[in-house]
């Protein structure tokens, strides 16, 4: 008695609600006795009933259709990631292919140049020796004609020619060695640059992918949230959500 908030309720509904809520929000005081309610009591009770109905239906929907933002975001992140993965995989593969090609070509070019330097050195040294032999022969012939073949002058001349040829060979080899070092240094730097570019490229592509997946994941999560709110509005029905379909356009027009 005294639970005027149940005025107008069916017995079953009132019993069920009382058992569930212990009559919270329904007690209006007084000892019952069937006295007339004042207008403000009737309005207050009706409003309270409406609020209780809203709470009950809202709870029903939330229980049946739970919405945990983080969980939905994780799901959407996975979905968006799967959708964008082909693009980023393709982009990364294209980038790495470019790096690999440059690295391979760089190594090939280096080997080619080193081989050419080596061959050129071999040729030069061979030709230098031939020229030395010819110069010594010519010198010996001259000393022989002058009966000075066994003289110290001839030997001195031969020594000078050999020293000069040896000096030219050393000079050439020094230059070839410098070129070889230069080619090796260029190749080494190219490889270092490519390694750095690869790392930066991987990082940038991965960063863009993560940002894009996160952005679109949030957008899809927001849409899922809006959709759920719409479905909840429809479930609650009038008078809690009148015109829910009328608002659907403005709900989504800025989110899609």
């Amino acid at each position, binding site marked *: 008695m005294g639970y005027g908030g149940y005025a107008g309720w069916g017995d079953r509904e009132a019993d069920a609600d009382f058992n569930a809520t212990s009559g919270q929000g329904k007690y209006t005081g007084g000892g019952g006795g069937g006295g007339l309610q004042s207008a403000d009591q009737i309005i207050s009770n009706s409003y309270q009933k409406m609020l209780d109905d809203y709470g009950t239906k809202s709870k029903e929907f939330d229980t049946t259709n739970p919405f945990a933002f983080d969980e939905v975001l994780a799901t959407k992140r996975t979905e968006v990631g799967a959708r964008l993965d082909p693009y980023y995989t393709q982009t990364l593969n294209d980038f790495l292919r470019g790096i690999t090609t440059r690295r391979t070509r760089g190594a090939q070019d280096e080997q080619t140049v080193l081989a050419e330097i080596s061959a050129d050195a071999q040729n030069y040294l061979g030709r230098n020796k031939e020229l030395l032999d010819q110069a010594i022969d010519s010198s010996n012939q001259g000393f022989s004609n002058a009966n000075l073949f066994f003289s110290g002058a001839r030997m001195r001349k031969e020594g000078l020619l050999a020293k000069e040829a040896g000096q030219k060979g050393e000079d050439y080899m020094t230059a070839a060695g410098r070129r070889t070092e230069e080619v090796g240094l260029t190749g080494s730097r190219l490889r270092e640059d490519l390694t750095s570019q690869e790392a930066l490229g991987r990082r940038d592509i991965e960063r863009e992918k993560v940002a894009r997946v996160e952005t679109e994941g949030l957008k899809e999560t927001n849409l899922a949230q809006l959709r759920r709110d719409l479905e909840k509005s429809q479930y609650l029905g009038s008078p809690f959500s009148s015109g829910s379909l*009328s608002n659907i356009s403005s709900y989504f027009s800025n989110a899609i």
Partner: protein
Amino acid sequence: MQDNFSSLDPYLQDYTAKSQKAAGAASYATTLPDLLTKTLNEKLSTSPVIGERSTAASNFLRELGAAPASVLPQNMGGVVLNPNEQAAIISGRRATALTPLMTANQRYDLLSGQIPDIVGAAGRSAQAQATLAQGEAGIAGETYKTLLDRMIQEEQFSLERQKLAQSGGGGFDNSFSKLLDAILNPPGGGGGGQTREPEPNYSPVGGVGATSPGKDWVFNGQKWESAWEPIDGGDGNDRPPLSSFLQP
């Protein structure tokens, strides 16, 4: 005495009928908006626009979920789209599905938006009719009360006059006594009640507008017409003209 007051019965009946009519009109004006709103909303709920809107909403919600899959390579002939291209296509598909819903909503809003206008106009009309009926009832009530007050006063004067006559006093005359005489002895009447004089069977000398001796009939040039006023209902329960009570 009872017969004298019964002559006001037609006015009392008129007052009662108009009061009831005014009460009914006021009640109708109060409940009409709610009834009309409920009825029109029920009508609207069966309108084809509701189905169109539901279909458009279902299509949009389906497209909302299906659009992302449409840009996958397997659904684009093997072409891998970049994220901007994917986003543009997804948004485009969703916006395309939203358009029918927006137009259906506009049609619905147009129809549902008319309901308050209709209810408002009908409510104002009913309120005006209620006000008019209340005004008519008020006038009828005032007329009845005025006549009743005068009759009561005349009764009192008559009693005073009889006392004076019995005590040998002089005559007593004023307009109320004439009114009382008119009520007690109505023109052509048969004593205490208000009875209409028989319709004359001659042509009046005065021509159009001439009245019968009791002024209950008026000649319109071709025939006699009753000068009595009809009371609401048209059941023949007419009353004498108010002027017949005030004639000199």
